[in-house]
């Protein structure tokens, strides 16, 4: 056994490999158990017209995005132009205004543009808990049958849209 001295080196390399791989992971991105599960149903007051309700049932049969946002969320501001661009391409984006104040939210939409086909208000964050929201912004891709297909945590980037969201939306739309 001449190669015995190589054993600690091999153990070190294996360990270093695992630890190095760990460094490439983002601990903030906790995989959601809701992927491929039915999206939790909700029917909430519309932000613009609190007297009216809007909910998941209204989106049945469509491929759509649920974007969780708030006017106090800085990263939401960062992703906003991407959502506007997505909406312009005809993707229905529903906004879930999470733990926000109505006036601040309305002003935010007025100032920065409104990409949302509909915005509903979740002032106490209950629907947010149903969706496992722990950091805004979060974006869910929901298919025609009302099943969550993908979750993006953090601001949506042009890269995410091009390489993940649009291809998946196209695929789900084809699937009928």
């Amino acid at each position, binding site marked *: 056994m001449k190669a015995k001295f190589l054993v600690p080196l091999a153990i070190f390399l294996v360990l270093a490999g695992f630890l190095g791989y760990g460094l490439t992971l983002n*601990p*903030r991105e*906790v*995989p*959601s*158990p*809701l992927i491929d599960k039915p999206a939790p149903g909700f029917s909430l007051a519309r932000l613009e017209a609190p007297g009216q309700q809007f909910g998941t049932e209204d989106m049945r049969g469509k491929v759509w995005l649920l974007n969780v946002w*708030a006017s*106090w*969320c*800085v*990263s*939401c501001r960062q992703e906003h132009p991407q959502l506007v661009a997505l909406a312009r391409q005809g993707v229905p984006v529903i906004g879930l205004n999470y*733990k*926000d*104040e109505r006036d601040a939210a309305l002003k935010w939409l007025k100032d920065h543009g409104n990409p949302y086909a509909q915005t509903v208000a979740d002032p*106490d*964050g209950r629907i*947010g*808990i*149903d*969706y*496992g929201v*722990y*950091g*805004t*912004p*979060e974006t869910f891709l929901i298919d025609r049958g009302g099943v969550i297909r993908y979750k993006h*945590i*953090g*601001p949506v980037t042009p890269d995410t849209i091009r390489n993940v969201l649009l291809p998946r939306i196209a695929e789900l739309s084809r699937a009928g």
Partner: protein
Amino acid sequence: MPVERPTFQRLRALSLSILFAVVALAATDPQPVEAESSGQAQPLVADPVLEARVQSLAHKLRCLVCQNESIAESRAPLAIDLRNQVREQFAAGKNEDEVIEFLVTRYGDFVLYLPPFKPVTVLLWLGPVLFLVAGGGWLLLRLRSRAREPKQHLSDAERARAQALLAGAPAENEESGS
């Protein structure tokens, strides 16, 4: 960082509650409250038994915003919301397993500080035992093979020299002359 906290709202809520406290103090009659006179803080909750259950479960749940704190310790708004959820569900008569189930279906096993035993966690749970068995086995093999090695006896010359050394003879250094 995708995680945001409604700091502004918290500040506002804080200042509001201070305002209410001042108003409430001004409105109370001057008779001292018993707990105050005995120097103890008044309990913040109506039902201490319920609160104890909430706290005990909250210590076992991880806050997803500040991941190294339990939701009992964290001051993140999400932790406060989740504590309220736990309190509400206990008050509605659910047991601890049902509340854990509620949270796990939404946030995944990650909310549990004690991960469940299932196929993906087999290595996590059995890894230490595996290492112990492997290490113990290796040690046993080593000891056995060593026991089988022939014992090396001293030659007559060596024995004589050892005895001389023990008797106090000056050691001759064989490697260098100095």
